[in-house]
């Protein structure tokens, strides 16, 4: 969460007190905490469908903060503290200055024990050493010589290493400039006169994501379903956004630096790591001792980003008031109706839509390779198919996400299948994958047809001339239905380039350039389809 203004002001004073040489000295000014916030969350650019993974949020957000600044006349260095940890500093835009921005800076070094030691290197430092028995603390002034794998310092007595003596030892540092408690962006600006201004800072930040999460509830007869959806958005940053205008954007946007990492923030490694070898005569292995010490440091050190995200647990469901959709260029923008607080490491849900009585077809199907001849039965796949049209009580953009399909059994709602939905525009066809159906099995194999056995010939496919076809092996596909009701079945064939189906005992169609048999398989029956194909080479030989 953001710190109170008072804490910010104190930090600003402390930082401003000690600073760089006078020639570049610009007054350090701390911007007030944001008075208005806009957070727009974008999906992970390459995730096409499916829900978000709270442990690894690959999306990003555009954050706009409105802040009040009090500028003195002349050049000043303005600090914006508490920006999101995942900030992409190169994307920052600051508007509202009359005199213009001289430069923008993002300092990745945060205030940490290791950063303190590094900043004090070669400078005077005070050593505190306490005698346990008496409780007396001895103070000594020295110089820090090194912080490479352990700390070496110098006192008038000589050179020593920190915490190797077994005595409680620590440093007391002088104030250090340039280290901030929280991720900070700073700008150098020039102002013609002292004034109070309202400025807007916008930037892209990683560690966000969102998805639509649909629930489809099938009616008892399976002929229609109700579709409801949540917008689920999440923030894995250590910074929260209180009372923000929040929206999400659907569609795929280009990220040019998708493969690059954000410049990491240096949270500082463990301080005071190692001493000289400390093995004793009674040690079995001295490695264990170091490991224990190491674990101890790890426990105390700030957790790296990836580990912290794993503890993202809080899920908040905002009231069931739907988001409002608007067009943004070629994208869809969904606005959360009221200001909301997107806290740090939080996921939040807002209602996207609720539609009822959408007619749906259940279609079974299989893709069969014509070369297949193993007589092994495989379960058919099952799809729910409908059209995203107003006539079907839909006809609105459906952003990609996960779909949980529920069916009713004896008045009880049970989960049938979970699958993904891609970005679907209005009037597009919607297909929801329902997995495999063990009740509907498909067996494909070839059967030998003798040239001499003319009576067993299959009918010619319309448009194929008798002369061009020779008789060869036929393919046979059996579809068995163990359900108590008849089903529609799409049998699609995979052919090599230039090959075609010449004879078949069922009507032949085409879908996406490939032959398809649209079949009805009655309850508890088996339908067998037989067909013959002709390959390219055969055809060139036969047709002049």
């Amino acid at each position, binding site marked *: 969460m953001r710190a109170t203004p008072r804490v910010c002001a104190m930090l600003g004073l402390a930082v401003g007190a000690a600073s760089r040489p006078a020639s*570049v000295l610009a007054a350090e000014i701390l911007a007030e905490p944001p008075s208005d916030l806009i957070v*727009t969350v*974008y999906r992970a650019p390459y995730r096409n469908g499916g829900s978000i993974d709270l442990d690894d949020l690959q999306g990003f957000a*555009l954050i*706009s903060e409105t802040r009040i600044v009090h500028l003195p006349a002349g050049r000043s260095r303005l600090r914006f503290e508490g920006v999101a940890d995942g900030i992409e*500093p*190169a994307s*920052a835009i600051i508007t509202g200055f009359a005199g213009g921005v001289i*430069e*923008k*800076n993002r300092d990745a*070094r945060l205030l940490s024990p290791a950063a303190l030691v590094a900043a004090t290197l070669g400078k005077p430092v005070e050593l505190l050493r306490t*005698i346990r*028995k008496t409780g*007396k603390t001895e103070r000594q002034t020295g110089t820090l*010589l*090194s912080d*490479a*794998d*352990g700390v*070496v310092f*110098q006192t*008038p*007595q*000589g050179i*020593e*290493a920190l915490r*190797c*003596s*077994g*005595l409680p030892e620590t440093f007391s540092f002088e104030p250090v400039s340039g280290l901030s408690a929280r991720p900070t962006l700073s700008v150098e600006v020039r102002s013609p006169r002292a004034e109070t201004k309202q400025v807007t800072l916008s930037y*892209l930040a990683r560690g966000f994501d969102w998805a639509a999460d649909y629930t489809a509830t099938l009616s008892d007869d399976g002929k229609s379903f109700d579709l409801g959806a949540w917008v689920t958005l999440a923030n894995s940053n250590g910074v929260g956004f209180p009372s923000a205008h929040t929206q999400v*954007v*659907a*569609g*795929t*946007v*280009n*990220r*040019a630096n998708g*493969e690059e990492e954000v*410049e990491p923030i240096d949270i500082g490694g463990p301080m005071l790591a190692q001493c*000289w070898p*400390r093995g*004793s*005569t009674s*040690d079995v292995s001295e490695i264990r001792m170091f490991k224990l010490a190491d674990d101890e440091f790890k426990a105390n050190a700030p957790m790296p980003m990836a580990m912290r995200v794993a503890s993202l647990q809080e899920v908040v469901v905002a009231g069931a008031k739907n988001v409002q959709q608007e067009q943004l*260029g*070629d994208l869809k*923008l969904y606005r959360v109706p009221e200001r909301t607080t997107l806290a740090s490491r939080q996921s939040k849900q807002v209602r996207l839509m609720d539609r009822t009585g959408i007619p749906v077809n259940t279609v079974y199907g299989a893709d069969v390779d014509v070369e297949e001849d193993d007589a092994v039965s495989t379960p058919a796949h099952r799809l729910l198919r409908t059209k995203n049209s107003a006539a079907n009580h839909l006809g609105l953009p459906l952003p990609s996400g996960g779909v949980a399909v529920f069916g009713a059994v004896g008045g009880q709602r049970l989960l049938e299948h979970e699958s993904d939905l891609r*970005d679907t*525009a*209005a*009037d597009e066809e919607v*297909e929801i994958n329902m997995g495999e159906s063990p009740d509907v099995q498909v067996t494909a194999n070839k059967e030998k047809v003798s040239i001499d056995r003319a009576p067993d010939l299959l009918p010619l496919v319309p448009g194929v001339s008798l002369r061009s076809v020779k008789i060869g092996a036929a393919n046979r596909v059996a579809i068995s239905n163990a359900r108590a009701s008849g089903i529609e079945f799409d049998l699609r064939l995979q052919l090599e380039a*230039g090959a075609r189906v010449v004879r078949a005992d069922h009507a032949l169609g*085409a879908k*996406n*350039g490939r032959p398809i048999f649209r079949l009805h398989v009655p309850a508890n029956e088996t339908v067998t389809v037989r067909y013959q194909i002709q390959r390219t080479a055969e055809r*060139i030989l036969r047709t002049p």
Partner: protein
Amino acid sequence: MRLPLIFMACSAWLSATSAWGADRTLSVTIYADDLALVQDRRDIDVKEGRQRIEFQDVSAQIRPETVSLAAADISIIEQNFDFDLLTPAKLMEKAVGQEITIVRVNPATGAETREQAQVLATNGGVVLKIGQRIEVLRDDGLPVRVIFSKVPDNLRARPTLSVSIIGARAGTRRATLSYLTPGLGWKADYVALFNESDAKIDVQGWVTLTNSSGTTYDNAQTLLVAGSPSQADGGAANNYRPPPRRSTLQVPGTASGNRERLGDYYLYPLAERTTIANLQTKQVSFLDVHGVPAEHGYEFRNRWLGTAEMPVSAKSIYSFSTSAHAGLGDQLPAGILRFYMRDKRGDPQFIGESRIDHTPMGSTLSLATGDAFDVKVHAVVEKRTRIATFDWQTDMRYELTNALPRSVVVKLRQEGLWGDSSIKAESQKSTRPSAEVAEWAVTVPANGKATLTASFETRY
């Protein structure tokens, strides 16, 4: 008796860092490819005769073979780059065979007992010789402080450059230290705000500097070079080349601006001296143009024999010119251009970004910002027929859908037309921008669809 000695050792160690000059001029020239030339001018005190000068505030990633030190009346004997770091373990290791002071602290009373000890070995544990006895340091777990009298010569807190010179005469003089270092880099970042109502963009350009060289460059005069001189060795680590992208440069420009050049590279000097802190990202403005006409369109590229099961979104494309009239009027260093557009409330929202290469003035750029939600193309190979052994006919059907309330034009490109490919029949006239590509401009009505068919004959 011992203390003055220690003070001497310590003051000598500190005086070796005397090259921290107060009157110092730093200039940093940063190339686009993780390489920088640092020129450090400062006054150094030189004694007569042989001496060593240490430079501790140089880049931690300095390429020592590129260092050159120039000053009047000195001759250089050798340059050393020491990277043996001062750690407690090294300190003890280098003390083997030498005398150290141990201070035993009585846990009950806090009373200190001082003893001299000789370090015999540091293998696993520290073995000491005290008088005629052998002891293991802190074997009993009781507190023992170890005090060393000096820091061994080669150990440093940070990698350090030292130069041994012979001074012809004593005195202060101006010296120039220059070297190459990785860890400093820059690129351009652009912000473009697209105004939908009048199809114009406002573009701001920022130079983004990054410093991960481990050192802060205070108050440096900074010059950026838009180009990357090839490095004999440093470039080898970056052999990875991403797969080819959609070309953003449509028409290379032929105009010259008034930017300064170095050879064929453009130079971008920063107007004011600046401090480039370690681990800092710094941005400085170099371009601010308003009201440049821009065009918004759609593009779909189908690979050869590309069949999709479901419709695929067309790319949303923005194009504009970098010429002086009706354009940005500047050459653009390589970087990322981010597009924004205002939403219904008037807040700018991000709508996608695209990388551009070094672009001359007067060019036409065409940048893809992302996928159009409402404009989709469903490409299908309807039929493949073998006409002769090396002659195929391919029938393609493209179904274009538009769920927007206005009509759009999609630039549909069928790619991969290799060999002797020709179009035998098509439902709309195509153009052939190159032998490999056939292109159609298909108008799709508002909330409607359009179908394009084409029949290709490929002989090879």
